[in-house]
């Protein structure tokens, strides 16, 4: 299969290291000079860009966490004046306020380029009709793939999310050949095809690029056989850029991280110590080219492992395994990141007191479901059914607004949620991955 940018993607390791070192040094200097948060962090840790004499010196620099982004909301982490920022995205924060990221024109250009690389590695060409079923909006998923596909010269259908039968009708009528969505949504599409009595051959799909949530090899086999496509995984997070940080090639043996733009490290999430190659631990990413929003040692909280041996495709870029969990309490529901604290905040607002609640995650067909069970008390009990329903409706609406995700609210009787040592078990995850 084609390689979008062979000069970069197949670079010799020593050349790559030299490039990374030079860019990292510049990034550290710029971050220190333009972002007060980094300046303070570097000063506190007693390090400066000059201390970087080789790549491994990066370990001496402090980490950046989601909490830092929250404290510097909205524009405090930007390294350029707002005038230079041409795009603003955001992702969910741990509480009510989202995390904000900005892009300069160069950043958008790099992002587009990296997604073009990733999509080419996954088999997309200029002749494809790319069906993008991620939700368009503040989340980076849809836009990343949209611009990348446009760069390749494919036809883009910005279908956005929802309404599976209409999506299938459009895939059939418009002859979509590449599908972009979450892996679980791919299976939902397969289920609907079955229900509509249609085979995979009623579609022209060839390849599928799936991301935004963890998925297993077993799920890949199911998607590939039921939709008759080559299914690849890709990785990204908006704090670092969005989709296009890493992606699989046709050999499906780990996602190539585009190391000419990002430096990955694996750390022990408990001790924060950098682990040797091949260890399983938390992925930490440093951006090398981002102008508006440089990230120094950002703790992704994703658990994975890196492989440095050469890939059969010819790309020299390191491969990361599928993520195998989180080192925090973040949940991924239908590709949307959810923190239990966000839900707690909403319930607190409507009830006016400490809520007793439990989150039940399950899978209906192949789609994640989130049920929020809330214990009833006098303030939220009504004798009229319509008022009770209105209340549930209100909570559901607020949750949808905060999470960007539909959750079902179920009222349960007081004291029915089990408490462990006075603290309720907040999350019951019945999904199997």
């Amino acid at each position, binding site marked *: 299969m084609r390689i979008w940018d062979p000069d970069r993607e197949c670079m010799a390791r020593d050349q790559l290291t030299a490039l990374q070192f030079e860019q990292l040094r510049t990034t550290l200097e710029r971050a220190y000079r333009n972002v007060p948060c980094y300046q303070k962090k570097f000063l506190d840790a007693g390090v400066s860009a000059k201390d970087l004499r080789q790549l491994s010196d990066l370990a001496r620099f402090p980490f950046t966490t989601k909490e830092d982004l929250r404290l510097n909301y909205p524009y405090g982490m930007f390294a350029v004046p707002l005038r230079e920022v041409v795009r603003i995205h955001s992702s969910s924060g741990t509480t009510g306020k989202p995390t904000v990221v900005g892009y300069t024109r160069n950043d958008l250009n790099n992002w587009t380029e990296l997604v073009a690389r990733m999509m080419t590695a996954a088999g997309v060409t200029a002749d494809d009709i790319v069906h993008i079923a991620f939700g368009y909006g503040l989340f980076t998923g849809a836009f990343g793939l949209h611009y990348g596909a446009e760069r390749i010269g494919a036809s883009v259908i910005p279908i956005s999310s929802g309404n599976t039968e209409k999506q299938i009708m459009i895939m059939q009528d418009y002859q979509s050949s590449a599908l972009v969505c979450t892996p679980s949504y791919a299976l939902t599409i397969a289920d609907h095809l079955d229900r509509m009595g249609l085979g995979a051959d009623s579609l022209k799909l060839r390849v599928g690029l799936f991301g935004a949530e963890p998925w297993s090899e077993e799920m890949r086999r199911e998607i590939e056989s039921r939709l008759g496509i080559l299914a690849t995984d890709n990785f990204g997070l908006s704090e670092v850029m969005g989709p296009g940080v890493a992606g699989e090639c046709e050999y499906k043996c780990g996602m190539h991280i585009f190391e000419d733009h990002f430096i990955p490290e694996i750390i022990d999430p408990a001790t924060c110590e950098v682990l040797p190659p091949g260890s399983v631990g938390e992925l930490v990413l440093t951006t090398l080219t981002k102008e508006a929003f440089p990230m120094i040692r950002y703790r992704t909280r994703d658990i994975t492992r890196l492989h440095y041996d050469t890939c059969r495709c010819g790309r020299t870029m390191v491969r990361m395994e599928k993520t195998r969990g989180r080192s925090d309490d973040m949940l991924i529901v239908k590709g949307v990141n959810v923190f239990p604290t966000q839900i707690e905040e909403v319930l607190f607002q409507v009830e006016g007191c400490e809520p007793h609640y439990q989150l039940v995650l399950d899978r209906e067909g192949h789609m994640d479901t989130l049920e929020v069970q809330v214990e009833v008390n006098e303030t939220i009990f009504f004798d*009229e059914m*319509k008022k009770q*329903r209105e209340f549930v409706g209100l909570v559901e609406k607020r949750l949808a607004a905060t999470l960007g995700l539909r959750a079902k609210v179920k009222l349960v009787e007081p004291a029915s949620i089990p408490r462990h040592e006075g603290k309720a078990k907040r999350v019951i995850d019945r999904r199997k991955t």
Partner: protein
Amino acid sequence: MKVEQISIFIENKSGRLAEVTRVLGEAGVNIRALSLADTSDFGILRLIVDKTDTAKDVLKSKGFTVNKTEVVAVEVPDRPLGLNSILQVLDASRINVEYMYAFVERCGENAVIIFRFDDTEGAIRVLTEQGVKVLVGERVYCM
């Protein structure tokens, strides 16, 4: 052992309930028991009457949407834990109650509970086996 109930769709606006009772009254139909379930837009009026078919016909002729459903009437001693004993029986057999309503017999010794179950046949079987008094329709219609 089943009892016929009619249910009527009525919009949540004034005069509709009165219209139902007027139509029934003029046709000489007597209401034995009723329950009204409310939502913000509409209500479902459920009735047990002495002349089910007449009631259904006259209401339909007046343009109401009417359904006939089968429910189960159970006699319960009018004392503490009277209802509980029945619900225990149902619970033990995992039979779900969709809705229920109650009235007290004229002489005042027993209460009658009207149940709608997810499994009507099963419920009647279980209740009868456990010695609960399930009333036949004719008995309820002329109470």
